[in-house]
């Protein structure tokens, strides 16, 4: 497992290939857009997706908690897919979430999908979290330096064989956007104005790979000539 260090506002932050942020100096871990219970939320609208998405998301989160043992876990909003998501969480999954809360302080930054704190779970609910000089928000675009989520960034890299699309981190020296951590979360291309507009002076993207990240500048993704697919 190889994490990439970056610097934002003079602070050294680690990007974990699993899609989490680790800030060693503050013992703080952050993840964005867990979208727990998205499956059951869509089922209510008729799409009976496999009801294992919350379990799959927690399966990935737990080892990270085990590895870093953060003093604080900041969930950057849209932690539940809708405001009743927390109530639908299965007993086993709820138990695991409480186990995480028992070893680390949970901070629920509220998002557009979950405007209220999850009922029945420990942790602090805030509109925005501040750690040192850095603000942790769901949606980016407030003052910098900031760490945000919301857009589910992904990037498409033209390679020799085909174009490969993966979720990614997006960063410049003032702002970092995290990929969505949840199991059923799709993504928005980083070249979309909603994301690229937040990085007017260019940015670097870090694509999630198996055990490592792949890094490109946005300019490179734009300039690279697509291979014949």
């Amino acid at each position: 497992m190889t994490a990439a260090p970056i610097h934002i506002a003079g602070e050294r932050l680690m990007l974990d290939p699993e899609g989490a942020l680790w800030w060693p100096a503050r013992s703080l871990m952050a993840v964005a857009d867990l979208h727990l219970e998205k499956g059951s939320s869509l089922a209510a609208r008729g799409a009976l997706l496999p009801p294992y998405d919350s379990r799959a998301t927690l399966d990935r989160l737990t080892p990270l908690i085990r590895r870093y043992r953060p003093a604080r876990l900041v969930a950057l909003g849209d932690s539940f897919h809708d405001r009743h998501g927390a109530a639908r969480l299965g007993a086993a999954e709820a138990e695991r979430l409480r186990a995480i809360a028992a070893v680390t302080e949970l901070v629920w930054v509220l998002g557009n999908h979950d405007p209220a704190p999850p009922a029945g779970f420990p942790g602090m609910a805030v509109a925005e979290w501040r750690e040192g000089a850095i603000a942790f928000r769901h949606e980016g675009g407030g003052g910098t330096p900031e760490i945000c989520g919301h857009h589910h960034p992904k990037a498409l890299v033209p390679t020799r064989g085909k174009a490969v699309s993966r979720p990614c981190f997006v960063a410049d020296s003032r702002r970092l956007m995290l990929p969505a951590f949840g199991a059923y979360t799709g993504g928005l291309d980083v070249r979309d104005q909603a994301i690229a507009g937040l990085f007017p002076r260019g940015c670097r993207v870090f694509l999630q790979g198996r055990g490592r990240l792949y890094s490109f500048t946005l300019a490179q993704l734009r300039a690279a000539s697509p291979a014949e697919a």
Partner: protein
Amino acid sequence: MFPEHEPKRGTMGDATALPPALAAWFAARGWSPHPHQVAMLEAARAGRSALLIAPTGAGKTLAGFLGSLAALSEDASPRLHTLYVSPLKALASDIARNLTAPIAGMGLAVTVETRTGDTGAEARRRQRAKPPHILLTTPESLSVLLSLPDSFAMFAGLEAIVVDEIHALAGTKRGDQLALCLSRLASLAPRARRVGLSATVPHRAPLIAYLSAMGRADAGDVSVIEAPEGAEPSLGVMLPEGPLPWSGHMGLLATPDIYRLIREAGTSIVFVNTRAQAELVFQALWRLNDDGLAIALHHGSLAREQRERVEQAMAEGRLKAVVATSSLDLGIDWGDVDLVIQVGAPKGVSRLMQRIGRANHRWNEASRAVLVPANRFEVLECRAALDGVAAHDLDGDPPPPGGLDVLAQHVLGMACAAPFLVDELYAEVTRAAPYAALSRQDFDDVVRYVADGGYALSAYERHRRLFRDSEGRHHAASEAVMRRHRMNIGTIVEAPLLKVRLGRGFGGLQLGEIEEYFVSMLNPGDTFLFAGRVLRFDRLRETIVECSPAQGQDPKVPAYAGGRLPLTTYLADRVRAMLETPERWSDLPDSVAEWLRLQRSRSRLPGRNNLLVETFPRGGKWFLVAYCFEGRNAHQTLGMLLTRRMERAGFGPLGFVATDYVVAVWSAHQPLRVAELFGEEMLGDDLEEWMAESSMLRRTFRTVAVIAGLIDRHVPGAEKNRRQITINTDLVYDVLRKHEPDHVLLRATRADAARGLVDVGRVAGLLARAKGRVVHMALSRVSPLAVPVLLEVGRESVRSGEGEEALLAEAEEAALIAEALGEAEPAPPPPRVHPVHRANARRDARPAAHSPGTQGRVTLRSLRGRRQAELPLDE
């Protein structure tokens, strides 16, 4: 009129069998019915189902309707008498036009209407309240009709069902869907006889079973009627001038000769194998077109209006030639095409026959066709295909069992029509041939999936789509469920498409549709070839690709997914037989025969019953070339599996490339014990592991998920909010594989993987055949037969064992180097990067990661610097 029906006076047949109105009509034209048409009429009068096997131009359509017209001439009381189902909307409309004239000529009061996706809401309502005598439709529209509660009343009096181009439907998902519909119709209208109209086919029994009300070929309820074969086609192979190319598939070298053929013929169809090839050949022909010949383009991505304009111009004889893909393999008849040119190898005998049949739709005149191979292997393939045509020896696999995804869609449709009992529905479904062998377990699993998703963790009690009443009947849960279902009926699942528009806004001219992934690789200003024009990509707005005309630039060619059909097993067998028999090389061009002789002296020739594998060093690498002849798809799968095994054996595979004929793998070390690499156990864990991450499996799963209704194509009123609704099926696939590997949708995905893009079935066949018969030639240099595939290296998509990860690493490395050399625009204020800690960098220097220290990367364990204590968390 029936353009295909022009028998001359004095043709055999007994006009006295006809009812007076029909007899008078035939007599007035000086025609008499063909014997097979009379036989069809007799079967109809006896109330028997019939399969008509006839070549093009034998009056097939009239034969199919004769029984219905005869009955309706005697009793024209208002009722839905005959249902006609065609795979093509255009064909249904064409038949409607062609039926109207003779019905008027016979003075019959018979009404004919079409019901397709294009039929307006008002016409639909009217058709349900007051159906025509003859209704022409498609499998999708029929499914919609059968999901409505009034289907019981609508079809109760049905007497005949005509299935056109039945050979093109059986064995496909649309065919599965139609078979289920036929079975339902048999329950609604037990008296209705079935008529199947088919081209000549290699396997008859599956078609007989398909038409049988019992779903069995041996049920004895279907008469088989054959029309005599038409005139032998006149066929030739045309080689480009100069030396024969060693590789390449586009056949552009031959365009001057193709142009000459077009100029000399009346009207030609130039068939090619892919849409990209169609664009290139079309462009190349127009570059030569000093005579200003009317040459048009036709392929599946063009806008419907544009395709219809081309078809119309063709029908009216205004075109000199049309360059087409399989979009014209089926379809309406054009009497006046007198030459078919096949550019590139035909890939199968049946497919070639079908294409040749598009010329001269007159039964007693010879079709004329010219094959234009693009490279040496294709010369062999063309020769083998011609032999196959001459021997009337068709290829084609027997149809596979029906898909469980299609069944799921049907089950919900049946619940929308009326509550059902599972025992009754199971009995009905197994009377459809594709589902004759369906186990009760699979059926019950499908019903459970439809009801609540069928997950072991039954989380969706509140969101059930079906519920059971106290008598055990399954009901559709709500109006919303039914509405949703009807909006999503169908088994054709396209890759996400975007509309290509010339000019801005809604005033622009719509040219067609293009796959989303291709557009996502374009940047504003890039040029590409589409619809025969060079276009400049301006911008993407919602789902519209806005373009402007571009000139004088080398365009990027659109690349489409899945455009190529693999070589058929049968044709491959013929190619192998030809290679094995030097006496037959005299039929081949000298340069090809010489090439084979050279191969025989330097190595060996692949045999019919063995598997030749060559290994040789070249350019500091080792190459392994296996002459499997199993088609591109199977070779891709085999390549993935071989590289995995070679990795484990320590040979250090670096990449592979697959063609229709061979698979070539290159590696860092010499491959040894080669026969062991091809052991059948390859299909065990290796296959399972690969399936977990294969993008083709993911694509297959997406199709299954959409057909089975897990993911909606259309959500009522939600078209605008695409991002909210779109669910990434890849992520669903991962989760389902992990938590419920035996789920019915994964079973359906694996069944599909046995053929099609993954083609595991053919890999399995190859490994079984090769057992104990691998002939390994350890050579000191490249063999003559291996040259073509080596030339493909770098041109074809190459995938190494690690797949996407390796490709990403390589792209990252290239980007880094470009950045260092100042080729790419450097990122404006790059984020500060932490310098690599020496010790950590050394520890991290894994041999597999061949990107030399991109940004400082540090292992996490060393960062934390302390061992993790146990957490009270379960894994």
